[in-house]
Each structure stands twice: as C-alpha cells, then as structure tokens.
C-alpha cells in the first residue's frame, strides 16, 4: 500500500512547482526545514503533509523542504518515508525546523490484527505472523492464496492446478487430523471464500497459529486462523488508485507423447512381452511408416481390410500441439477510491480478472468481478457505526467434453494415440467411436458454464459508554449461489462409409442440466472489552458471544434429447427428466472471554476461555469448554538489559498452552442414522426405473468434539539497530479424540465400523523468520526469509493387528511402504538364483523385470502379513509429506527503480508416481510419453524402466525405491522490476504517481523430479500450472 501512496520523487523543480501551485491558490505562510536520518544523512523524497488540509510536498535531494501553512504557531506536519517511522511535528512558531527520522523497526513495532483487537506485535504472547499488502502487489495473481505462498512460516498454500479460476487451499502448521481440517479464514470477520476476493483490496493478512491466539475464534479455529483485513480509507484527501496488469501465461510443463513410429513399435514390443504377438500387422506398420516418413504423399488413414466401413489410423498427430495453445492472456484491473473526511472513513473499489485457458479450440475462460465498499462513521464520541458490502461475481466457461467430465478436466485424454489424425480425409472428425477426439470435444461438444454470486452485507456498531470501555456488535450475512448450466451436444461420428454415421461416444443423448446451489450464512458476534491501567499494571478484559449458521439448499434439473442440438433449455428437450434436491444446515455457538495483563511492558499474560456448542453432536455431547493461557517476557525492557540494548534492540520470549475443539468431521448429521435413497436405479419394472432405499450406516451415539492441544514456545528479536529482526517458534500440537472408524472388525459386518473418538496424533514443528532492512543513500533494500518444518505422528489408533496399510501408533504421516529394488534381472539364471518373487506376481518372471531385495532373507519376496510384526520385505522407503518449506524474498529500490524477487520451495519430499503417464503401457489403451521408451530390452540392458508389458504390470510396478522420486524443489516464483515516472512529468496533469513494471512468475525451477511432473502438481488429469510474464501500471491521483 505504502508503495502506491508514496514514491521516491526528487528534484528541486517539483517542489518549486508544488510551491507555485500553492502560492497561486492562496496567500499564506511558508515554513522551511531539513530532514535527515539518525546518522545525519540527508533524506530526499520524504512526503510532508500539513494536517487537516490537502497540502503536501516532498523533500529534495538535500533533504530540504518548504511547505505552506495557515499559521506558524498552530497545527502539525507529518513526515512519511518508506523504511522510517512516521513522525509528527507540532508547529511552534519557528520558520525552520530540523527533523530526524528514525528507521522503522518494521516487524516489531507493527500493529497487527488479532482476535477482536489490534495489538502491537511486540506485546503479543501467541504465535502470530502477518504480512502487509506489499507481498500481493504488482503480481499477476489469480487469487489471494497464490500471493501468500511461501511468505509465512508453516502457512502452506495449495496452489491447485492451472485451470482458469482454480482456487487455493490453506493449511497452518501441517497435519491437522486424520480427518483433515483446515484453518478458519476470515475476511473482515466473516467466512468469505478467499478465492473470491480481489487481492488488490487486501490491506493485511495475519495468521494466528497457536491455540492461545486462535482460541478466541473457537469452534472452527482449531487448526489456526487466517485473518484477512481489507483496505479502509486513510487519513487525508480522497485518493484514486488504478492498477492494471496484463500477463501472458504459458504452461509450465508440457509432456511429450511418443510419435507414431515409436508408438507402433513400442506397442508391438509390449504386446509380445505380454504373451501376445505383434499388435499391428505388417500392412499396418507399412502404412504408419509411409505417413511418418512422408506425410505429404500418404494419408493418415487406410481402409480396414476386415471391415470396409472403417478406417484404420496411421497418422502421426501431436495431440498436445493440436489441443493446447502455447500461451494464454490474462488481465487484471482494479480501481479504488478511498479517503477520510471529517468523521467518515470510506474505501470503495471495483476489480476485474479475466483469465484465458490453454485450450486451442475453445475459449476456455474465467472472469471475476469484485465490488467492495467499506464505510464507517464516528457519529459522536460514544458511537461508531460501520457497514461493509461486497459483491463478488465469477463466471467460468469450459467445453462440455463428455458426460463423465468435470469442469477442470485436463483435456489431454489418456488414449490420444498419435496414430489417429484429427480429421478424416473428407474433413469429418476422426474417432469412429473407439477413441476420443479431444479436438472435437473442445470444438463441438457443448459447454459447462458456472455463475457464482457472492453477496456480503455486514454492519455493526461500537459503543463507548466510558473511556476504555467498548461494546461491539456485528452482524454478517452472506448469500452465495452457484448456478451451473451444462449443455451436452451430440457429436456426429463418421466412419469410412458415408452411409454409417452414428453418434460420438459418451455424448449422447444430448442434454441440458441446470444445477442451483443456494447457500446462506449468518453470523452474530457481540463482545465487550474494558481496559484498565493502574500504574504499571495494565489489564484488558473481553467477553463475548457468537453464533454462526450455514444452510445449504440445492436442486438440479436435467432433460435429455434436445430438439435442436444447439438450443439448451429444459423446455426445448423431449427426453427423460431427472431432478433431485438437498437441504442441510449446521450451526455453532460459543461464549468466550479473555483477560490480558501487562506489567510495565515486561511481563505479559493472557488467559482465554471458550464454551462451545455444535449442531453436529448429540444434545448431551454438544457443549465443551476449551481454555488456554499464554505469557511473554520482554527481556530487553528489563533494567539489567540496558547495557545490551544498543546491540540487541528487542528480545522477547513467549510461551502458550491451550485446548481448542474441532467439530467439522463426518458430515452435518454424523449421529443420525440416515437412510439414503436413489430415485433412478438401473432396473426397469413396469416400464419405469425403480426407486430404492438404502440401509443406514452404523452410527455412534457418543460422538463429540476433537480436542486440539497446542504448546508453543517463541522468541522475537531485533538487533543491529533494528535492521535485522526475526522470530522463532517451536510447537507441539496434539490432536486428541479424533473421529475415526472404530476398531476394525471382520468384513462380514458388511458396512463401515461406526465412527468414534478413537485416535490421537501429534505434530511437532517449528518456524523461523528473519528480516533485514537497510538503506544506503539512494539505495534501500530488504531481505526476508522463512523456513519451517513439521512432522506428524499417530499416537493412538484402533489397529490391534498392526496393519501397515492402516494408521498405527508410531506411524509417521506420509510414510511410504515399499520394496527395496536391487535392479533389473538380466538373465533367467539370475532369476533362478534370486529369491522367489511369485508372491508379488504369480506368473513367469523374465529378464528385464524388477529384482526386489529379500530383506528378511526368507528366500521369497512378499509383504508377509502386512503387519508391523510381519511385513515381509517391505520397509519404509520415503515420506510423501513435504518438509522444510522455505521462502526467500528481496526488494530493492534505487532512485526511481525498484526490484523484487521471491524464491519458494520444499526441502524434502518423496513421491511414488504411477499410471501410464509414468510407466508407459499399463494396458493396450495407454499412450506412453517419450521417457517410457527407456524400457529394458536385450539391447538396452541398463534401462531405467523394466521390460514393457501389461501382464507383469503389478509385479514390476510395486512401490519401490528405484522409482521413488525426489520432489524437493526451488522455484523462482516472482521477479519484478518497476520504474516510477519522475514527478516533474506528472505535476502538470496533477497525477501523484505513476509506476510501470514487468513481472515474471514461475520463471525457473530447480528439481530432480522426472521432468514430466510439476513438483507442485504431480497430476496429469488437471491443467498445468503456468509461467507468466506480465506488464502492469499503477497510477495514483
């Protein structure tokens, strides 16, 4: 934010020009002065404001300034410069003032938003981290989450995939519960979906990590709280700020399929290895070869000798190139108006994001519009009223694909054989029902359109009956609806015989489907606080109540057989009708209280308590009390520390301990035995499909809250003249009474074991953050780094047999059980000599198959009983959980230039890939990528992959050390260079500031992961993440 309002404009002329303006406007007094830092260096570009007016100026290169005021004896000036504390100067009749600005102790003096209060960071006792809008600015962000990746220790952001509009997910401090569970995300106190808001509206983000700081948010805060505060009007005249960014995105990893000639040969080889003969006969091979070597004089099809109605395909199509664009355009614009006049504080903004996808034959698109208005008014000295409204609207458009497709299909297809051309010689789409023609799906399959409307209205007031006593009440209301319309068209399917035209697979009958979700959320929150100061004793008391209710209602209506393939409407179809609906609700309620005690800014203590209830539990198990306590000691404020204070500016230790509850597991009614129904069973009686009722699952009547108990130890410090600051936190989080299936019983039970509060786990972790900020003349810079880690272990679980495929006490989260690989067999003799592998695969083992190590020396390779006591030759070969997450950020400014970079990564993670994308042929339908060609053959004995076959797929492709991948990575997330236009150019147009910049995102990645995978998205079914180059402009009036 600061970077928008302020800038380093220098030069005598601009000050002179400013002065001229003022002189022209009114006849008033001029005051002069000089500004330096504490080391007496002259400071230029300091913004100087005259309080209570719109008058402002800046200091010149020598630190000199002059400003017009109404009177020399009253009023005040304010001095602002990035990297320095804002300083206020009361006028006392002098004509000339010398002003010294102190460097800002960025982190420690900062005021951060915590539960129902704003507090100096240095006085916090819990584990709290926060960042301001700086990390979000000037980046081509599709959502807020992507901007928060790697900036806060142990705040893990799942970036999802590269589909337009795909949202982010959040986790605080690692493993939460075997049931999952994430942090509570609040935008200005309400549970707004952070993926729906405009990142440009965000003022700050605070993460409450430990139980003590999160506890005040109670029922849903067990796994941390992310508080997002949006911008409000700032003191001073009205400001208009415009931000515009256009970026060119390109997919990060583009896999490469084998070409046609490689494909047919590899297919034949694999079919033979699998016990069959050649898959393609000589005639077929000849056609493929002819087209492969000379596409100009040969056709990619030929008539099937056995069926003259059909073509056989002999083309050489690069389906990636045919279906995907290399680049897509994205635009992001927002404009805001903000200010504070008299008693009214206002911020209004409008933003638009328009993101194009990578499909070549469809205008795949996500658009989001945001309107935002924050207003507050101090009506008198005892009443403030406020109002917040947001309207978020998003629109998503993708091709229909097939009936089984979802919105975010990759449109890569698993069976895109290079042999199939896109078109038949007569121009019709190829496919003939046997293969999926992805070009046809993009072009003529219809569409899936989503519209989201997200309306937030909230209001509240603060009463101040007495000094230091406030009463607050807020109400938030949200109406969220998502309206989906799917239009599935029939695609005509051509063969070699023009008389045989049928309909393309899975696209028939044509259909239209509407789905409407109508969700409501309301939240009432009231609290009162009172502050008391008795000499060196400071107390703060807070007590409150909150209630939240969410109701969900949805219905869908579908009708088959459109009268016209191109007209999708329920009334314009003549076929079967299907519809369904649902209605659910859940609610939580809590009473909370807090006491803060601060003795002389040295000893800090905080007590929290909550009494929480949830509709998800039976009446007698509904309410639970959760307490927490935290304390801090500001050692640097002690008398004995005085001598050290010049070296160590701040030092604080803190500790916290507390319980929180979690209730979000097992659906909305986990204790009620529900009998589900199915209205359309696949069986016809008397000409109608039958309806059915299912037996209820077993439920436990004793379900109650999961308890999350967290201990936190922290240290904050600032040294070297406040230039280096940092904090370190260590924590232990025990998740107790996790709701899991009870003790496993034999399968003849015939249903899942009912859930009970039967498991515990422990997560231990730490996070370190360091920041450095300094300035040398024109050059100012900052560096910051975070490093964090956590590790989860199951400590109690119902697994009396000790099965390694289930959870068990002592299991480290993410562990991967597998075989140790010795290599590939090179001869039959070697197989004979080796331990018996028939329990892994009962068929014949051949040279080129995988050789597993007989770890327990019993002469056979097996998984034993699959228990801890007898796991045969299996061992833990790695861990899938990411460890050692880090981020490293730097920003620099020199004269009118600024420069930013940001690295982010994961230090340790193992991944066992699978599927035909990794292995090549897993069935005759697979189409391998190029890397799979490195399979064992007589003439390729040191191959990476085993002999390619379908029959021993299970044996060779066990989870094992040889194919385990190291998914650690380092990625340059952001690199940005900006330039602010000189002030003298802008003065005449009365423009405060113009900055232009270019930013590159995801510029390069260092990883040893197999190059077909993205370390952030090891999944081919989903659209890839992208690299982007963007150009942007910020303008402030």
């Amino acid at each position, binding site marked *: 934010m600061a970077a928008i309002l302020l800038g380093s404009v220098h030069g005598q002329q601009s000050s002179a020009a400013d002065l001229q303006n003022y002189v022209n406007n009114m006849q008033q007094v001029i005051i002069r002065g000089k500004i330096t830092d504490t080391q007496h260096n002259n400071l230029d570009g300091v913004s100087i404001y005259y309080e209570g007016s719109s008058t402002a100026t800046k200091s010149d290169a020598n630190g000199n300034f002059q400003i017009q005021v109404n009177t020399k004896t009253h009023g005040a000036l304010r001095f602002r410069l990035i990297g320095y504390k804002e300083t206020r100067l009361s006028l006392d009749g002098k004509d000339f003032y010398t002003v010294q600005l102190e460097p800002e102790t960025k982190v420690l003096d900062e005021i951060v938003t915590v539960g129902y209060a704003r507090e100096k960071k240095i006085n916090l006792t819990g584990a709290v981290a926060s960042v301001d809008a700086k990390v979000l600015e000037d980046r081509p962000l599709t959502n807020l989450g992507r901007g928060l990746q790697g900036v806060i220790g142990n705040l893990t952001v799942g970036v999802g995939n590269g589909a337009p509009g795909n949202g982010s997910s959040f986790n605080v401090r690692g493993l939460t519960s075997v049931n999952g569970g994430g942090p509570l995300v609040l935008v200005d106190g309400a549970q707004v979906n952070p993926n729906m808001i405009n990142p440009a509206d965000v003022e700050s983000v605070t993460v409450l990590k430990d139980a003590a700081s999160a506890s005040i948010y109670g029922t849903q805060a067990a796994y941390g709280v992310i508080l997002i505060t949006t911008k409000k009007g700032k003191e001073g005249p009205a400001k208009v700020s415009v931000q515009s960014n256009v970026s060119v995105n390109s997919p990060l990893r583009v896999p490469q399929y084998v070409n046609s000639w490689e494909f047919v040969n590899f297919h034949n080889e694999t079919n033979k290895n699998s016990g069959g003969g050649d898959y393609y006969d000589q005639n077929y091979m000849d056609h493929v070869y002819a087209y492969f070597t000379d596409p100009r004089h040969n056709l990619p099809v030929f008539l099937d000798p056995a069926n003259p109605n059909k073509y056989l395909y002999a083309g050489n199509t690069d389906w990636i190139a045919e279906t995907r664009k290399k680049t897509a355009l994205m635009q992001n614009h927002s404009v805001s108006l903000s200010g504070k006049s008299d008693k009214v504080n206002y911020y209004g903004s409008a933003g638009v994001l328009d993101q194009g996808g990578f499909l070549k034959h469809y205008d795949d698109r996500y658009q989001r519009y945001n309107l935002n208005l924050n207003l507050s008014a101090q009506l008198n000295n005892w009443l403030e009223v406020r109002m917040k409204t947001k309207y978020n609207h998003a629109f998503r458009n993708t091709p229909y694909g097939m009936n089984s497709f979802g919105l975010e299909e990759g449109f890569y297809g698993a069976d895109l054989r290079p042999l199939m051309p896109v078109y038949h010689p007569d121009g019709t789409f190829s496919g003939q029902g*046997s293969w999926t023609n992805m070009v046809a799906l993009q072009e003529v399959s219809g569409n899936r359109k989503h519209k989201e409307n997200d309306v937030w209205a909230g209001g509240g007031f603060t009463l101040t009956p007495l000094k230091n006593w406030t009463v607050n009440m807020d109400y938030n209301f949200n109406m969220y609806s998502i309206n989906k319309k799917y239009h599935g068209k029939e695609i005509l399917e051509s063969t070699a015989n023009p008389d045989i035209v049928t309909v393309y697979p899975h696209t028939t009958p044509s259909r239209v489907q509407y789905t409407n979700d109508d969700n409501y959320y309301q939240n009432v929150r009231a609290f009162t606080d009172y502050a008391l100061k008795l000499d060196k004793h400071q107390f703060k008391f807070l007590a409150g109540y909150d209630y939240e209710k969410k109701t969900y209602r949805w219905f869908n209506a579908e009708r088959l057989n459109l009268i016209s393939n191109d007209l999708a409407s329920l009334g314009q179809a003549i076929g079967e009708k299907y519809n369904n609906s649902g209605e659910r609700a859940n609610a939580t309620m809590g009473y909370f209280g807090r006491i803060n005690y601060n003795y002389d800014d040295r000893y800090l203590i905080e007590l929290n308590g909550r009494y929480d209830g949830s509709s998800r539990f039976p009446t007698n198990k509904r309410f639970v009390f959760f307490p927490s306590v935290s304390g801090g000691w500001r050692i640097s404020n002690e008398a004995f520390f005085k001598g050290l204070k010049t070296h160590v500016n701040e030092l604080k230790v803190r500790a916290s301990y507390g319980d929180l509850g979690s209730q979000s597991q097992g659906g909305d009614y986990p204790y009620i035995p529900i009998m589900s129904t199915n209205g359309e069973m696949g069986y016809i009686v008397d000409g109608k499909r039958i309806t059915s009722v299912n037996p209820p699952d077993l439920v436990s009547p004793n379900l109650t809250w999961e308890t999350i108990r967290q201990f936190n130890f922290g240290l904050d410090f600032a040294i070297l003249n406040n230039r280096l600051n940092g904090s370190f936190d260590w924590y232990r989080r025990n998740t107790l009474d996790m709701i899991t299936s009870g003790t496993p019983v034999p399968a003849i039970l015939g249903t899942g074991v009912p859930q009970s509060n039967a498991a515990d786990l422990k997560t231990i972790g730490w996070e370190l953050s360091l920041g450095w900020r300094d300035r040398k003349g024109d050059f100012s810079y900052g560096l910051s780094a975070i490093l964090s880690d956590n590790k989860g272990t199951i400590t109690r679980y119902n697994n009396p047999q000790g099965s390694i495929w289930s959870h068990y006490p002592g299991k480290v989260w993410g562990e991967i059980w597998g075989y140790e690989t010795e290599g590939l067999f090179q001869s039959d003799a070697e197989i004979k000599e080796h331990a018996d592998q028939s329990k892994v*695969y009962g068929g014949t083992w051949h040279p080129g198959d995988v050789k597993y190590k007989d770890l327990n020396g019993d002469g056979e390779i097996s998984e034993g009983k699959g228990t801890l006591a007898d796991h045969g030759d299996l061992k833990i070969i790695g861990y899938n959980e990411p460890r050692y997450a880090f981020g490293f950020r730097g920003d620099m400014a020199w004269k009118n230039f600024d420069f930013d970079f940001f690295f982010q990564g994961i230090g340790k993670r193992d991944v066992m890939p699978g599927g035909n994308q990794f292995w090549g042929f897993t069935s005759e339908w697979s189409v391998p990528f190029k890397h799979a060609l490195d399979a064992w053959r007589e003439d390729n004995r040191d191959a990476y992959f085993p002999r390619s076959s379908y029959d021993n797929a299970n044996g060779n492709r066990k989870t094992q050390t040889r194919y385990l991948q190291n998914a650690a990575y380092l990625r340059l997330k952001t690199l940005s260079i900006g330039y602010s236009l000189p002030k003298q150019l802008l003065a005449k147009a009365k423009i405060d500031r113009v900055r232009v910049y270019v930013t590159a995102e995801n510029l390069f990645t260092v990883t040893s992961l197999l190059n077909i995978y993205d370390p952030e998205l090891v999944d081919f079914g989903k659209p890839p993440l992208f690299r982007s180059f963007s150009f942007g402009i910020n303008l402030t009036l």
Partner: protein
Amino acid sequence: MGSCKNELELYPEDALSDPSFWKTDQDLELYASRFYTNLPGAMGPGADNQSDWYVSNSPNGYLFGTSVVPTSGGGWSNGDWYNIRACNYFLRNYSRAKGSQTKINKSVAMVRFFRAWEYFNKLKYFGELPWVNTDLQVDAEQLFTARDSRQVIADSIVADLDFAIANLPAAKEVKSGELHKYAALAFKSRVCLYEGTYRKYRNIAGWEQLLQKSASASQEIIDSKNYSIWNNGQPATDYTNLFLQEDLSKNSECIMPRIYVPELLMHNNTRQLEESFTGLSKSAVESYLCKDGLPIGLSAQYQGDQLPVTELENRDPRLLQTIDNPKLPFKNLENGTIQYRKLPMIDPQYCTTGYYVMKYHSPDPAQWNLGLSTLDVFIFRYAEVLLNHAEAKAELGQCTQAVLDQTINPIRDRVAVAHLKENVGFQDPNWPAYGYNLGALVQEIRRERAVELVGEGFRWDDLVRWKAGKLIENPKTVLGIRVTDALKSQYSSFNKELDANGLIKVYPQLAQRKWNDKMYLRPLPIDQLTLNDKLTQNPGW
C-alpha cells in the same frame, strides 16, 4: 437468533432415517426393490472369458496361475458383504410395518431370494462361509466365528429359496420385470444342480438330495406349462433372433427378463461385442455337432477345417448363428443393403481367434451406438431350466428318453439338429478328458449345455462344479482358426503365429496353461485372516 441452545438442534430435511421408515407394506416393497440391480444385465463379450471356451486378448491371469493372495478385498471386503447386511437389516425390521400380510410376505420373499442370490455367489467363490442372518453390530461375537460348512450354507440358501417360492406371486400376477415364483424355482434348480454336482465329484455327502431338489424345481416349471422353447420354425435364424428381442416380457422362453427401454435404461452390448478383444477357442468350435447329431470326429457331414466356411458347413446351426460368417448379417446399412463379411476377423481389438462371437450382437447400426442398445436380455431362460433338468436327472441315473424329449430335444428342434437318444449311440473319440469316467449321456448333455448357453456366463461355474479344471490344459483352448496359405493370401497382411497344424496361436510367447486344484476356490484376503484368526485359508493358497 437468540442464545437459546435449541438453535443447535438441526435435522436433515432431505433424507429418511430409520425411526421414520418401516411404516407400511409399501415401505417394505420400496426397500426390497433395491436388490433388483444386483441381477445380471447385458454381459458383453467377456462373460465366459475365464474358461476353456474363450481366448481373450490379454491372457486371463487367473487361468495362467498369476493370481496371488490379495492383501485385502478380493471379494471379501465390507462392501462385498454389504448386500447381505442390507437383507438382514430388512429381515430384522420388516415386522415393524403394518399392512396386507400377503404383500408383507412378498417383500420378505424377495429379500430372502436376494440373500440366497448373494450367498450363492459367495459359495461359488470361496466355498465355506460364515452364515450371517442378522445385521451384525460391531460388538457381535459372530464376527469372529469360523466358517460354516458348505452344507450349512447350501441348506440356508435352499431354505431362503423355499420361502421365496412359497410366498412370491405367480408369474402372471406380477408387473413386467418383477420377481416371481418361477424365477425363484429356476434359481433353485440352478443352485441345487451346482451344489449337487460339486459334491458328487468330490465325494461330499448329500449330493443326491440336492440333485433331486434341482430336478423337482425344474419339473415344477415344466409342469406349469407357462414356458416353451421359442421356435418359429426358422432353424437358420431363430437362435440368433432370440437374443435380439426388444421385448422379452412376452417371450415364451423368458422366465424373467432384464428390460431395457430407449433413453430410460440402455446398455452397450452390440458395440462391446464388436470390439470384443476375445474369440471362441478352437476346442469350443470343435464341440459343435453336425446336423446329424454326430460329433465331427464321426459324422460324414463334416467338411474339415481347411477353410473357415467349410468348417461351419453342415454343423449344428447354432454355430452359424453364434460366430461371424459370410451368411450372418453384420451390419444393416442405412441405404438398405446388408453387409456380410467374407473373411474371419483376426485382430486383437475385435477377435483373437477368428471365431468372432456374434450372439447378442445386432446388425442394426442404432444398437451399435455407444450405450444405446435397448435389446432385453435374459435373467432366467427356460432353456437353462431344461438343461438343468436333463443334467440332474442324468447324474441321478434317471434320465429316460421321455426326459430327453421334454428337455434337450425341444432345444435341438429349434435348430433342426437330430435328437439325442437315451443310449447316445456313439463314442466320440474327442470327448473331453475330465479325468474321471463319465457316461456318454452326461457327456452329451454337458456338450448341449455348453453350446446352447455359450457366452451367457455359465462356463466357469460348470468347469468348477464338474471338477473339470484340467480342460484348460488342452492346447486347443488357446488356439484359433486354421490359416492355410490360400487363406493367408486373402488377407492384405498376416502376421499371426501358427502352430504346427496351421492354427492361430493367440499366446505365442506363453507356455501351456497348468491347472492347479486350488483354483476351484478363491483365496481369502490376508487382512481378514489377520482380523479373525478362526478364518482359514482355502487349500493350496
């Protein structure tokens, strides 16, 4: 919106729950109907892939001995026992409902039929099983008991079926598609024949009574005169057309149909059969008699297999109506012409052996559309009941000419093949070597069963109950048509490997299959043996 704690009392507004159900006899019928979808539907080309009659493109792992004891699942998971639990849950609760006793009994009969259906499938798969007759709770001791004997399981299945037979309405009184008395009788004849022969060939007591029960059940169906072999006097097409019916509910041979209706519910049989990835084996094709009722080794009518078309000449007309040949319409084109195919299809995607099975395949392009086939299929077919009857009688030594004339011979009449005689009248040098002595009549009844029911999913069960696993060791069970040089030249290219006699080797790289007796039963998964130490593994695994 007060602080009242009732704000947290929320109940689902879109779902039934146990206390609110079980009110009327309609509730019972609604619940009992849920099991219909477990009945077989259109089976596609693979129903008999795991047998000596079919050769699939991917070698059947089980028959090649590649299967291992699974870690979990393998047919014995929570989900696999779900339907039995669902039946037992009904049987414990149905008496809460009020209404007509006849209607209540009908629903109970349906549920007991379906419990028998589930248990029969499990009996075939695993042999001994725990008999569970209530919806167990997690603390039930019965969860940890040993398996009950086959006798206990079979007796319980028969008891369920007897209740169903006694309480289900007659066929004429139900809506099309509904379960009725004669369907339950047909199932009983199948179950008792299975268990009777299974025991007979393993010297387990009680087989005579079971075969007697099978014969009585089929006799009751025959005596009802509700059903007859569908015979329009067109021996060259009746068999093929029987499986291409839009509406089987009025068909004289259909005891119970699975009904498909355009748009409402459709299947994919025709397209799947065309892209079958399998084919009939040489040994299967050689099993077909000639029209004179003699096997190819004896009949003067047999023309030899030098050419695919001669091999089919003068044979049991079901052969010409089962596999693709130049006389069987392959596709009825939109311009009115009918397409036939001159050469046998040999391609892994379509047919592995050259014997391309066209039973249930419709030449109508509309039926070929993906997922748009609307032809009904049989759940219970009268011909099976007749074959069950003849076999049970023969195994009991009670199969007279009168029995044959009531069972096998009407089936043969449809395709105009000479009648089977009580004394058979020939010794086929190519009779399958079952590994035990088998009378000529039972040999011929088994042949008739295989031929008539090809592709309907019976073959593996038959091999198991006959203790006939060794048949898969016959090399001809993985070979295809004979390809002479003359035939080869008619293909634009030909690259299949042939054996010494010129027969297509479907698996040129694989050694001959070896039968292992453990394969008669499936292995129990390791996790279940660990959870309940009273469970024992099946022999050999």
